[in-house]
């Protein structure tokens, strides 16, 4: 593989509606937060370049509508994901209980090569609302442990608490996954006609784009 290929990490954020998926992404990428809720339509993505251990990588973060049917964008949406972020609202137990379903659905749709070791990260969001907390850190950690030790972070998109650190971990795990996923490359073509040297040979004419 040539060194010119950029590392692009595809990260998918899943979770029930209203847990703050879009807010987390916006806080991380644009450093913005709004209290007003607006349902995400379908899915959208944002990109951010980050340094991970002295390596510049591009994160393409996909946010989905918690309310949308999974299949509407098809498997292409899930395919090629390097990390899946599961988000729940730690003030709403039901959103935590859904994580299992989201995780299973992701594994079915994305069908990663090594499902057992596919990197997930769980975020318990709205950590700033400590007084309303319904899901204890211990409960969340225990669930994560039972799923092949998924890392767990408590974040607040509203105050930006822990958001940067959580996404650093997401990027690091995604990068590790990305390395295991190199597709098959064809080698330089073999030229049997000795008079012609095909590789990188552009004998005449302009380099035109097509």
């Amino acid at each position, binding site marked *: 593989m040539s060194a010119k290929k950029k590392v692009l990490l*595809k990260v998918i954020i899943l979770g029930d509606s209203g847990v703050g998926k879009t807010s987390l992404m916006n806080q991380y990428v644009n450093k913005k937060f709004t209290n007003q809720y607006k349902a995400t339509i*379908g899915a959208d993505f944002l990109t951010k370049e980050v340094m991970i251990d002295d390596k510049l990588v591009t994160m393409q973060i996909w946010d989905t*509508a918690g309310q949308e049917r999974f299949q509407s964008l098809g498997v292409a949406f899930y395919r090629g994901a390097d990390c899946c972020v599961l988000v729940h609202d730690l003030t709403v137990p039901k959103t935590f209980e859904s994580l299992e379903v989201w995780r299973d659905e992701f594994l079915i749709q994305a069908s990663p090569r090594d499902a057992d070791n596919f990197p997930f990260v769980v975020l318990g969001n709205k950590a700033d609302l400590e007084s309303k907390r319904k899901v204890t850190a211990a409960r969340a950690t225990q669930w994560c442990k039972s799923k092949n030790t998924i890392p767990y972070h408590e974040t607040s998109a509203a105050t930006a608490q822990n958001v940067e650190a959580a996404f650093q971990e997401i990027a690091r795990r995604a990068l590790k996954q990305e390395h295991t996923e190199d597709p098959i*490359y064809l080698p330089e073509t073999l030229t049997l006609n000795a008079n012609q040297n*095909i590789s990188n040979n552009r004998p005449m004419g302009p380099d*035109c*784009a097509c």
Partner: protein
Amino acid sequence: MEGGRNEVVVTSSSSIVSDFAAFRSDCPLKKFAQPHSHLEWTYFQAGPGDATPLVFLHGTSSTAAAFFYQVQSLSRKGYYVISAQYPAFSSPEEWCKGFDRFLDAMKCRAAHIVGAGLGGFLAQHYAARYPARVRSLVLCNSFASTYAFAARAGTWSSLIPVMPSMFLRQAMQDTLPQGGFMEMSAKQAIDWVGQQMNDLSGEDLASRLSLNCTGSQVPSLQLENRQITILESNGETMVPDELRRQLRIQYGGASFAELKSRGDFPYLSRPEEVTLFIEVHMRRFGDFIGYPTGDTPAAGYLEELPSWEDPLALREEPERRQVWKNPFEDDDLL
């Protein structure tokens, strides 16, 4: 290098060939002859004709067939899709007039345009001159200026009109990437584009090469940057880095969609990914279809569909969320 091609050991029995054959069996290639000229557009057309179409424009070396995967999948999702193949024009200005006639003939007032390479360049020219007719742009491995190509071509470009078509075809074949490591699907796409090229007339080849190699810069667009998606393959493409960078700078707030894979023709080598990005792009403009009946949100809501930077996004939208049905929906939150 056609001879060389045949002697290359690694050729691929491509699935593109059979997929295209299946596509052709239910989608005929149509023609539109421009009045008072010898110019003839060819195109594939699919989906409901009453919607604002998504018009695909190919690059220097391709044909209307280049986007057959997208025509197929997007029309199945309910979009009105046209993949147009332009005849030989002498300049971007002439091309724009011709394309305007073509849209008239298709009976569409406006269009979303997806342009690859030269097609994207021409689409920008059109958007600058006929702003009312362009709803949005997706630029796939494209550029906003041809000066870098012109500089590389040098005096060569002035000879294009007098060159025999055999020579032009060879020149065009030679511009396709031939060496280096690439994924099997990318290689198949290049091979297929190379074969399709044989259907092009000498006049077409000359026109495209000179459009590509004559220095020209897209005038500034009236489109907001959020109406533009820049779609790029990973790694090197036939478009020089400086032009890619320039395009990104020119449309700073545009959505920048990077593909994980390499290859100049991602719409052939990674069709699902390209379709996904186009679909996401279209949803930003309220043209999103493909929901099971009953789930289709109210049209008025969709017109207000925000992009991330859009201040409108901060507006409250009460009670309309109910439209969606999700088995995992948490009613308490609605």
